Structure formats: C-alpha cells, structure tokens
C-alpha cells in the first residue's frame, strides 16, 4: 500500500477535501480505506474533520474576481502583473509558498494556470510570469481574471519554513525562480534569520527581485549558478559558513545541482525547493503533478509534504 504522507492542507479550512470522499486522502489511513490509524499528522484528526462535517464537502476553494491594474514588461518574455483582489484571499496568500490559479474570465477552466505570489499588499497581489504558452498569452492590463486560491504548496520541504527563527539560510534563485522567493525572504528576514541570497539572472536577463527588496537588508551574491565558478562560489560558502536551511528556486537542474552540493558537504541541511511540477488542479485529483519516487510511491506534488531529496 502507498505510504501515508503529510498534506499541505491538513489542519486548514480546506481539509478534508474531495480526496476523502473517494478514499484517496494523502494522510489518513481510514480515509484511504484502512480499518486502523496509521498517520503521522500532528494535529486534529483528519477523520474527525470528515465525520464532523457529516461527509459533506462545502469548503472547496472558490473563484474570486480580480482585475489587472498594471502590466509591466521586465525583460524578454517576462512580465509583472499587479492584480487588484479581494482582501480576504490576499490575507490567506500572505504566507511562504502560496500560489493561485488564474485565467481570464472569458476563458474556460482549461486556462487555469498556477502562479506563485511574488509579492502582495493590502489590496493587490503581484505576479511575475513568462508569456510562453496559450495560458499566459493575451493577458493584458484591464482584464478581469478568475482567481482560485489560496494554495500553499509552492515550496516543497518537510518542515514549516515560516517558523524558522535566527537560522542561517541560503537562498539560491535562478531566472524565473526569483518569482517565488520574495515573500519567503521578507518573512524570514523579519524572524531574525541570517539570509544570504545567491542570485542568478538565468535566461531572464534580469535581477528583478532586487527591485522589490526595500527595507530588507540581506547579503546578495551574484553568480552564474550553473558555471563551474558559480558552483565553486556556492560550495565554498556552504563549506565555510553554518547553513541550517537551503532554498533553491529555479529549474530542476538547479535543484539537482543543490542536492549534489548538500550531499557532498552537509547532509543535515534542511532543503526546500520551488515546486516545478506541472500543476493543473491543485487538489490532488487530476494527476498532472504525480511523481514516482524511489520507493515506488506516486506522490501528488501539489499537496504532499515531502523532502525534496526524494524527488530530485
């Protein structure tokens, strides 16, 4: 039988979800059809939540309407969107790893595309994206969007990153990976963590995240992370300094490179990666994000909490 894993939605208002109705829950053995408990979730019991709701699922994530109030060209195919949005949803998105699905209101749900929250303020969210496919082309200033959320699995890792205090944290961001690191940097900085950012413009030819870091005083080192020299710089830093947490944000090759570095230098480093899976529904239903890991389990990466070492 598939092992039980923790789920990013456990303990939230979105647990239990539709997976429990079909006995496909990620975390609860009962809601996977077993007779007895076998979970590792610390918190109010998932089966309990299910029974208390009398099996009725009325807590689906809903569609909000948002409006693009600004669209800025950054470089190449890279754009920044400023979207006016209901404050209730913004508050739920104000956390590390949050993302939403967006589409133009005139489009069908086929066009739902997951977008990391780059930044937010009281009435707006900011998204940086590449205009490269049918889901992202033709999004323009003034457009009304259908925004579904909140989703929280944008960063993969086993512990709660938002609880890290006074830790030494290294963040490696390359290219479009910059889109998912600003919120973590801001939150972690406020908790007294010592953050060092290794920044690589990658194919985007832009270090756009730096423009949004006012008031955040962290050490930033510019590198070409995939070059020998860049890798050496990183390795030397990790070897010569205490590092509790490493966050890598970029393409899969960046993650694989970080895994090699961690495993050769210090296996105890807690590692988080940007979630690069193809995500279509975000609810563990569609199967687009399934990844088969070494022990044979197929993991739904939109929701499962797992050590990225198992994936890369």
């Amino acid at each position, binding site marked *: 039988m598939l092992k039980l894993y923790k789920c990013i939605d456990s303990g939230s208002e979105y647990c239990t979800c539709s997976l429990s109705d079909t006995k496909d829950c990620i975390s609860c053995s009962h809601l996977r059809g077993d*007779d007895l*408990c*076998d*979970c*590792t979730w610390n918190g*109010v*019991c998932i089966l*309990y939540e299910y*029974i208390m709701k009398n099996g009725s699922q009325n807590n689906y994530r809903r569609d909000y309407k948002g409006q693009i109030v600004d669209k800025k060209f950054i470089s190449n195919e890279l754009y920044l969107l400023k979207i006016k949005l209901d404050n209730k949803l913004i508050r739920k998105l104000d956390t590390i790893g949050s993302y939403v699905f967006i589409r133009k209101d005139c489009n069908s749900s086929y066009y739902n595309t997951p977008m990391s929250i780059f930044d937010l303020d009281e009435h707006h969210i900011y998204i940086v994206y590449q205009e490269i496919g049918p889901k992202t082309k033709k999004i323009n200033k003034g457009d009304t969007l259908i925004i579904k959320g909140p989703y929280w699995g944008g960063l993969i890792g086993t512990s709660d990153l938002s609880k890290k205090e006074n830790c030494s944290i290294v963040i490696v961001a390359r290219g479009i990976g910059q889109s998912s690191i600003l919120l973590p940097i801001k939150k972690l900085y406020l908790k007294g963590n010592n953050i060092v950012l290794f920044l690589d413009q990658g194919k985007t030819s832009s270090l756009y995240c730096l423009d949004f870091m006012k008031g955040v005083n962290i050490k930033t080192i510019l590198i070409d992370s995939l070059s020998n020299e860049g890798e050496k710089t990183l390795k030397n830093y990790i070897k010569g300094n205490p590092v509790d947490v490493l966050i890598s944000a970029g393409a899969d090759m960046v993650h694989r490179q970080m895994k090699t570095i961690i495993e050769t230098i210090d296996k105890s480093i807690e590692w988080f990666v940007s979630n690069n899976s193809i995500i279509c529904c975000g609810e563990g239903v569609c199967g687009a994000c399934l990844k088969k890991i070494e022990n044979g389990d197929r993991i739904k990466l939109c929701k499962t909490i797992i050590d990225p070492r198992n994936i890369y």
Partner: protein
Amino acid sequence: MNRIVVIGGGWAGCAASIAAIKLGIEVVLIEKTDMLLGLGNVGGIMRNNGRFTAAEENILLGRGELFNITDKFSLHKNIDFPGHKHAYLYDVTKIEPAVRELLLSLGVILKLQKRAVDVVKEDGYIRAIILNDGETIYGDVFVETTGSTGPMGNCLKYGNGCAMCILRCPTFGPRVSISQKAGVTDIVGMKKDGSYGAFSGSCKLNKDSLSNEVINELEKEGVVLLPVPKDDIQRDKLSKKVCQQYAIDEYAENIILLDTGHAKMMTSFYPLEKLRKIKGLENARYEDPYSGGIGNSVRYLSIAPREDTMKVKGIKNLFCAGEKSGLFVGHTEAIVTGTLAGYNSVRHVYGKELLKLPTDLAIGDLISYTNKKMNTEEGLKDRYTFAGSTYFNRMLDKGLYSTDLHEIRNRVEDLNLLNIYNKIE
C-alpha cells in the same frame, strides 16, 4: 557500547528501561508526550487481588524499584472495594516526577516529545528508529511499549470520538505501531459484539468539584459507593469496557469512586447531566478524560504477535511489553511484562538464551496464557489481568494467588529464579 532503544515511556517502557540499564547497557527511552507513565498518570490501582502476588514475584525476581515507588506514593493501602481486596492507590498527581527522577538517576537517556514514526530495517533486524523530526536513533535491540490506545481516528471509529485523554494526541501526534512499520501485522482486540477495541475502564473526576461529604469519605476510606438512580442503571455498558474485572453488577448499580489524587470513577464514561443527579456529585466535572461525559479512549487496536519471552515474532531484535504485548489491563501487568522484555533484550545483546518465566509463577503464567488465548476469536474478546475476571479465576484455580510473602518467596526460590533479573549468566 551496546544500546537498547525503548519506544514508549509508559509503565512498561519505564520498567524495560530500568531492567536493561541495571545490567549496564545504554538505554534510550523515546516518549511522544512531555511526561512519562502515559496512562499511569491517570490510573493508580496497585496490588489488588492477584496483582499483589505478581508485584511480589517481580520484586523477588530482582526488580522492585517501580513497586517501591508506587507503594511509597500510595494514598491508601490495603483497601477493599467491590470485587477487590487489599488494593493500594497511588497518588497520580505525584508519581511521574518520582519515576522520571529514578530513570534519570540510573542514566537512562530520555527523549521526551519525540515521536517514533518509522524504522530502518535490514535482514530481519531493526537497525534504527526514525523520529518525527527526522532524527535517526540507532540501537542493537528495540523494545516497543507504545501501547494500543488511540489515536484519534481509532477512538472515533471504534468509540465515541476523542475524549481528550492524557495521551493528548492532537498535541503530540498519533501513536505509531513500530512493529507494523517493521512489517508485522498487529493483532486487534474486540468487544463482545465483535467490533474492534474497547473503552478504557475508568475516568477521573476533579476531586474539588465533589461535595465536602464525598471528599471527606474518599480521603478517609479511599473508596466511596454512591447508588445510581434506578432509571440510569445500564448493565450492557459493562461489556464494552476494557477492565472486565470491574464489569460486575455492583459497578452498574453504583458509582464507585477511588481516591487516587483525583476521584477515580470506575466506569468508562458517564453523561455529566446524569452524573450530577447523584447526591454529592451535583457540581462534578471531569479531570480525565476531559470529555468523560461523552466517551473514553479506545484500546487494544495494536498488539504485536510475540513469544513468551516477549520477543516479537518475525523481527529478530524487537521485544514488546505492556498492552502492545497482549490484551493486558493495568500498571502491574505493564511493569512485569516490561521488566521481562527489558531483561531479555539485554540477554539478546549478549547472545544468551532468552528467559521464559515458568507458569508456576503468576507472571509467567499470565504471559503464556494470554498468548495462547489471543490465537482464538473468543480470546480476543477477553482481557487479562491479575486483578480479576478470567485470569484471576485461573490464578485461584491454579493456586497461584497468594498474599503470603514467604510462600511467594519459596516459589521463586524453588524455581531458582531469585534475583534472576540482576544476572546474565
């Protein structure tokens, strides 16, 4: 240095730790909550009926430390209540720090608030235990004393839901069956009607919430019987509880309170409104479980198949004790099985033949009898304790029950087992 890892810090785990460390082995004890003793923090009944014999046997076998503590912290000694004689009631509000101090003074490495969630297995051996925070604890031999109670999903499915008991699953996380993680399927106990599990058999009322008359009598006598209004007597509830030694008519017709620091009430649960109709309990409130008016924890959902040496079948270096090792009820049962498991874990380390206690002793007989009975469906619906019901009747029939210290000593001596727990010959 050789190391024994004990998983679960209840009475059984504490007893196993002491038994092992006394023989000079390093012991790591993993406990998921912030307190040792588990359900021992809300129990308190010792030495009633056959438990007296078993306690004395364990002391003569060489391990009396925990019984010395329960004796020392007894609020009442040699009291009788329906179906039970010469009970000692220890003070549940004082006992845990004393046991913790003992374990620390012996050098046991305590890992509190650490939950064992998985194993590293190789060639039929467990090599290490994985904790919830990712730490890996390596060892030579492992003793599982994680009990069989809960977690919440089980209490919900087979009981009346989480009643917020001392195990505090929402805070510290669910119990994980280590033997099952190592590939050995758990045995599951049943109620008389064939459904899984059984309710814990007693709950505790906050003593200060009782009337002065009840408090005074309780503290003077140790026991108070309050008649249940006729309309509220429910005999059928008796079959659903763990403690079959308390499943006799007196327990349906009366509220029986024992002074264990709290007022221990000898029923699984009792609706608060009905409880407050009883004279003296007009303002009563529950101390454990907090929702004792609704339900209680559900037990016997995770028992490892084992040898009479307490070694788990199918894994070369895993032992078990307490409720994990059978449909046992009580602290004494946990301590005596824990002691044997801890002792045999050391013998295993040194490659010595494992000790199987003879059935001429109550302890050996309980361990062996329960093991046999658990292979039958009827046996899975029964509970086994020195204190009453099926097994105490067997003790009486076999002449194993005795309160005569000389007689018990002679038995142990004749079997050449005096102080055996202090020797690895």
